[in-house]
């Protein structure tokens, strides 16, 4: 369990706003109501394809309950932007971390685990484990 029963927040970063939103809806739906806080940060602020550090930082602060924030990303600039923010800046809340996981499967695992009250390490482990889920 996380400290003080606080829930880990999840941020989903995609190049596409609709992809991030849809994966958030999918993951919270599969976790079944009353879930950990989840925020989508997809696309640019203008609604185009790309990555916005401002949307990512805003989403991370929105879901931060003091138990850490797990950030899942799709590829390219989404990965690099989150890494750069974590390595250099003060834009993200303390305890935010980039989780190495497949975007959709990892998001489902992270939201389900976080909703059960797990701490950030367990949420990260569950999301990473989604890489092991073979389909054939």
């Amino acid at each position: 369990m996380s400290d003080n029963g606080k829930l880990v927040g999840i941020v989903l970063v995609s190049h596409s706003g609709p992809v991030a939103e849809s994966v958030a809806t999918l993951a919270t739906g599969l976790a079944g109501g009353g879930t950990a806080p989840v925020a989508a940060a997809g696309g640019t602020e203008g609604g185009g394809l790309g990555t916005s550090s401002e949307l990512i930082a805003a989403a991370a602060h929105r879901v931060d309950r003091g138990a850490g924030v797990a950030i899942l990303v799709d590829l390219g600039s989404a990965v690099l932007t989150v890494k750069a923010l974590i390595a250099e800046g003060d834009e993200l809340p303390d305890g935010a971390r980039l989780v190495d996981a497949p975007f959709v499967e990892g998001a489902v695992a992270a939201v389900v685990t976080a909703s059960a009250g797990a701490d950030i390490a367990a949420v990260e482990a569950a999301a990473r484990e989604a890489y092991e889920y073979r389909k054939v």
Partner: protein
Amino acid sequence: MLDADFFRRWLTTAAAAVDREAERLTELDSPIGDADHGSNLQRGFTAVAATLEKEAPDTPGAVLTLAGRQLISTVGGASGPLYGTLLRRTGKALGDAAEVGAAEFADALRTGVDAVAALGGAAPGDKTMLDALVPAVDALPTSFAAARAAAHEGALATTPLQARKGRASYLGERSIGHQDPGATSSALLFEALAETAEGAGHE
């Protein structure tokens, strides 16, 4: 010695160069990328020039740190966090001195280039901006002009390479024969640096 004004002029000169070359950068990014490198950098460097004008930071480190932060938040593509990290890490390495020597700047810039390599996981020869940045920082202790020439040659030398990082790497052998847009924009930065140094009487 190089003061805050020198670095502000460097980045303003770079912004003008990016603005002038934006179309060419996007053209280079069309066959092997997603045709947004010029417009992304143009947006980023325009914002950098505006914020430096407005906030007028008074140390070299603060100029570079602010510019890096601005690139990360406005570019919207992978070049944002990469160039942002380059400037921000270089700025941090310079600390809060009011003036820095050319050798100190060369060392700091190497720290910045190393941070770019760590962030993107690329190495020279992968057909990325590092193919211009690494030879340029190697040559910088010699002179600003030598760094400009090395960056330019490094960018040209990416043409026969096969991309091993980023979207272009999905193209495999089809990425051969195109000059890398990131290495090309990196060469523009060193061109702007040499121009600024010549204007200030540093060789």
